[in-house]
């Protein structure tokens, strides 16, 4: 069964066709990567799924529900959580309070939320920093916090937008291990936008490649990195 399905989804911004009849499927429980050069339309696709902007044409389904026209908070209620390319922590709140906000999506009771938050923070190795102001965290910690917060909403699908950017290789490996863990233990489906190939190769079971708003290739990671169309869009025609 597919968790997420996009069919002929398009979005135009005035003069630019940002997403051009893109179709793909993300099977339930899978980890899928969405890659492509800058400006290919990856984050726009995320924004379309998350309800931040409305697509002009096509259909987006999650499970058996269409997501067309839902507002961001309704998309979250449907079971999809996302992180942002440029992290958006609740700066003046503590690390713990940040995650509690996420957990309050599942329960009204702040105590239950705090318990749930603790569990997530411990998993992500942030518990020791729980009382720190979110704005004072380092970038890798802020990224982990963003993921922790999103996980608080107990999503079935997690959209990760360049969550590895700016991390050192050891930190990247830790994150990879973590995502594998939650995918395995909690059954969270993951769709990630990534430039860091190390993470894509280690995590993704399936890769989708976008360029100029169109899907140009999809397949297993090892096949994709050899695909001439993909190489061409990254390295240019002559290089291939």
């Amino acid at each position, binding site marked *: 069964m597919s968790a997420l399905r996009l069919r002929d989804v398009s979005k135009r911004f005035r003069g630019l066709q940002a997403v051009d009849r893109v179709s793909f499927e993300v099977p339930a429980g899978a980890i899928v990567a969405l890659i492509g050069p800058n400006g290919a339309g990856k984050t726009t696709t995320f924004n379309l799924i998350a309800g931040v902007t409305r697509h002009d044409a096509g259909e987006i389904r999650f499970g058996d529900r269409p997501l067309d026209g839902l507002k961001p908070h309704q998309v979250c209620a449907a079971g999809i959580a996302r992180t942002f390319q440029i992290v958006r922590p609740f700066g003046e*709140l503590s690390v713990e309070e940040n995650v509690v906000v996420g957990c309050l999506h599942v329960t009204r009771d*702040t105590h239950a939320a705090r318990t749930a938050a603790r569990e997530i923070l411990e998993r992500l190795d942030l518990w020791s920093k729980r009382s720190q102001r979110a704005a004072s965290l380092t970038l890798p910690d802020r990224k982990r916090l963003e993921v922790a917060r999103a996980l608080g909403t107990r999503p079935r699908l997690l959209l990760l937008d360049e969550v590895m950017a700016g991390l050192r290789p050891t930190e990247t490996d830790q994150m990879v291990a973590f995502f594998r863990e939650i995918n395995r233990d909690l059954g969270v489906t993951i769709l990630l936008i990534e430039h860091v190939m190390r993470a894509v190769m280690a995590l993704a079971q399936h890769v989708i490649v976008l360029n100029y708003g169109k899907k140009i290739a999809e397949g297993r990671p090892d096949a994709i990195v050899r695909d001439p169309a993909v190489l061409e869009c990254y390295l240019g025609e002559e290089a291939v």
Partner: protein
Amino acid sequence: MTSTWLSDVPSRGRLLLAALLAVLLAAPFVVSSYVLSVLILVLYFAYLGQAWNIMMGFAGQLSLGHALYFGLGAYTAAALYAKFGVTPWAGMAAGAIVSAIVGAFIGALGFRFRIGGVYFALLTIAFAEFTRILFDHIDWVGGTAGFFLPVSNRDSNDLWNLRGDPTMFYYVWLAGAGGVLALCRMLLSSRLGYYWLAIREDEVAAQALGIDTFRYKIAAVMLSAALTACGGVVYAFYYNTLFPEPIFSVARSIDMLLGAVTGGVGTLMGPIVGAFILTPLGEGLTIALEPFQEVLRLDGIKQVFYGLCVVLIVVFQRHGVWPYLARKLGLRQLTGART
């Protein structure tokens, strides 16, 4: 659930709060009538500042037209009492409902049309001014000539009709300020409070976490408006005369937020601390300068002082006096989003 009410406030803080409460409860029996009137002013500003703070500090929406709700509350209750003999407490409920609806309307307009920041503030001013001029022409409640409540003799205190001596009003304001503080404390520990703070910090991120930001922002405006209206009612029954100009003016809107800004917008104790600092200083200044009455015209000196305070706060301590004070007194950990 309520057992954690004050459990994360250090014991020193609880002690100070209890001491303050004790002092305030005993005050009318020991201080002069002048000091009592100053204390009433302090509690008045503490109450209104806290009410305004809910909208600005918790939900992050700047309103410079809160005098609108103040006036609506005042006039509604006053009219119901003077024309129909309705008790001011029922009048308060009516005024609060009216203000909440108006607030929801303004908020909805602003939020639906994506008007933020400065433009929204201007919208609130426009509504308040519009209403001020409107009331100038409503002769049923006096118009520019003023609306007068029947004043009875001050021999006995009639709490039901809010007729009585300053001491009675003092306790009403004290209950109000204390009540609003307790309410805010409770809210901040609840889901509503967390969601408000999230919206204040980053509305887009909040939406991605399943928060219907529109609904919660409206809730903040409505609560803030309703509470402000209640303040207006007590004001009306204390002073017994209402004129549209001083009640709905921009000056009053700004007066209401001075304490909160000085103490610290977005904090729990900020508006209270701010009121306790600003008002006595202002009064003290007026007294200190009285000998110079001949040379300087004193009518404006208090305002100049308040203005200067705000300027100094914005330049030097933009988060307000309370966060700084609290850290010095060891009453707060580093993150004090909810104190």
